[in-house]
């Protein structure tokens, strides 16, 4: 049966899980930077999620999500053996990965760390020296440190409260690295919008290209609707087909963060309705 969850791992109970899904035709094509669109139920909304890993031989893809609204809350109720109703992909342009002379820095925050994993892996396989910089508020919210360790030559960690790694933000670690090593080839960032904006600004100060992966609102994911549009370098671009990765120094992050709030009250209502009618599985 297609789209069956073959493995589920609760990374942060009740908040974030990893699903390994049998989807051979997507796994065969998925490249770092690609995303999928899924629906959980017949009345469900289409939501985009970055592919965190793909195994063409096993015919599986991996996604990691944060429970943020109704669709992800519903997704969280699914268990191994359950199928995801609709799964469409791989979508978006893949990350440009070529052999670089200098190190590549992959910065991840929140569930963006998992999304970054696929890209770091791609650079690693291309023979690049990969520095992973990941951060979270506190140790318990940090994902994928071990997985990144397998594909990064160095992993630097920061937490806001200092419970693990350096106390502070990923941007501080990034800045130190950029100061110490003038040969950095490229920076990539995936995470919350303020983080990506800050990372792009730091990289920009050191004249290093910084690609960011945008998490705009999407509907079809194939360029039909324009919901995901954002100004990049003064031009309107669609994150779904022109991206999702763009030069972070050209992205209008202010516009992006505003557009992400377009349906907030309705998203909240949908989530509340759902939690009212479903038993919480987080403590299982």
């Amino acid at each position: 049966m297609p789209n069956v969850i073959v493995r589920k791992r609760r990374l942060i109970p009740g908040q974030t899980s990893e699903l390994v899904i049998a989807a051979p035709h997507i796994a065969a094509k998925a490249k770092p930077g690609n995303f999928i669109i899924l629906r959980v139920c017949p009345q469900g909304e289409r939501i985009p999620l970055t592919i965190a890993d793909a195994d063409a031989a096993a015919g599986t893809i991996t996604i990691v999500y944060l429970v943020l609204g109704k669709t992800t809350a519903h997704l969280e109720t699914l268990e191994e053996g359950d199928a995801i109703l609709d799964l469409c992909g791989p979508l978006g342009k893949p990350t440009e990965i070529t052999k670089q002379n200098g190190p590549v820095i992959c910065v991840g925050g929140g569930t963006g760390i998992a999304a970054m994993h696929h890209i770091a892996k791609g650079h690693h396989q291309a023979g690049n020296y990969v520095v992973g910089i990941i951060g979270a508020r506190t140790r318990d919210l940090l994902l994928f440190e071990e997985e990144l360790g397998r594909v990064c030559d160095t992993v630097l960690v920061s937490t806001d409260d200092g419970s693990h790694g350096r106390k502070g933000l990923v941007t501080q670690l990034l800045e130190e690295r950029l100061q110490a090593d003038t040969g950095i080839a490229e920076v990539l960032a995936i995470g919350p919008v303020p983080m990506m904006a800050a990372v792009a600004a730091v990289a920009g100060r050191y004249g290093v290209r910084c690609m960011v992966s945008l998490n705009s609102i999407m509907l079809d994911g194939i360029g039909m609707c324009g919901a995901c549009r954002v100004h990049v370098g003064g031009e309107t671009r669609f994150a779904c087909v022109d991206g999702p990765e763009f030069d972070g120094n050209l992205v209008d992050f202010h516009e992006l963060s505003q557009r992400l709030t377009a349906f907030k009250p309705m998203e909240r209502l949908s989530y509340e309705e759902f939690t009212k009618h479903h038993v919480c599985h987080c403590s299982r």
Partner: protein
Amino acid sequence: MCVTAPANPKGKIRPPRTPMPEQAPSVRAHNFNEVALGYTPGMALTEASRCLQCKKPACVKGCPVGINIPGFIAALSAGDTRRAYAIIRQTNSLPAVCGRVCPQESQCESACILGKKGDPVAIGRLERYVADTFMADGACEEITGAPTCPAGQENTRVACIGAGPASLTVAGTLAAQGIGVDVYEALHEPGGVLVYGIPEFRLPKAVVRREVEAMKALGVRFFINWVAGRTVTIEELLEKKYKAIFIGVGAGLPVFLNIPGENLIGVFSANEYLTRVNLGRAYTFPDWDTPVYPGQRVVVFGAGNVALDAARTAARLGAERVSIVYRRSENEMPARREEIHHAKEEGIELLCLHAPLSFNGDAKGRLASVVLQKMRLGEPDASGRCRPLACEGDYCELQTDMAIVAVGTRANPLLPQTTPGLRINDRGYILADTEKGETTIPNVFAGGDIVTGAATVISAMGAGRRAAAEIAQRLLA
């Protein structure tokens, strides 16, 4: 009032064109149920009796898929609805759809001889009546006839890319001849524009589902959530098992106005707005999850059927005021007259001779107003329509919380980009032989909006029909 009906050549009194029963404007403006309710059997027989049964029927020439119109009307008059349906199905795979959304007034009905002196036969309404009556009965194969050879033979399979009107026509036509067809659709529901674009109140999704089910009964297989060019390429499909491929992916990308403020929250492409409401059933939110908030003061840009669909949808979602802003005058509006009439009845305002200049937003990035340039009409341009000219210095500002841009679409570059050898024209549309529909890759055909640019459902079906004829000839030879 006394209406004198024209007499036919045999001296019989001919009744006037039978009006379509409709939901009252005041009622329908608040629901998503179908506006036109359909003929009763009595109405259908009365209307069918108006047909002159011309020896050389001009109406058939006016039909892009060449339906034997006098033939099906004669069968209907004789009380044989099943035969009427079978006659329509000989050349039209989606009769219940076409009876609703075809612009008959500029096609078959415009050629009807009765139209020269009075009102033409309501061919579209009769087509809808026949399709609905038959489909209510279910069993599709019974009427379309069993396939000439068993459907689904692995050595003659054809792939259709996209599940809109063009592809569905190819699929239906080939399947009826026993050729196996697999349809690959990027979205999660087959139907293309019939599902994501045309609203429920003009084309109930249940009608589309029935047409799709009818095709499944003929052996057509649907693969949803497959994005051609991403999940699978044309090359791979050709290598795989398919003898021929038909590309009918539509003209998917929205065109924006390219004016300041266009990325404010509250500015939607018609594609986004309609996809949320139609495919996502946002009008039932929160029962269905896809959200769209109700605009209070809605402005729609464009004057085609899509603009009208968006405007009428906004009214149904509770807008206080909906205005269609168009840079020319009502006479030049490309939408169907019937739709303009319906929209006005529902309280939609036409704000003609205005063009958008810029959008203004609030501190949170939400749309607050639009600045409009007043226009006047000049001399006719190459299209024959009067050219809109700006009245310099004459502006107005309209408070609005929702703007819907419905000024057209362009070609989605995904397939050409991922298909070596597939040639496109300078506007990005796929080059295809006008007769057979074959592209620059042998045995790969294309038709519908991805070849012609945005057009009608029926013209896409006409292209599908021509391509299917050629494919069938090659495969069954």
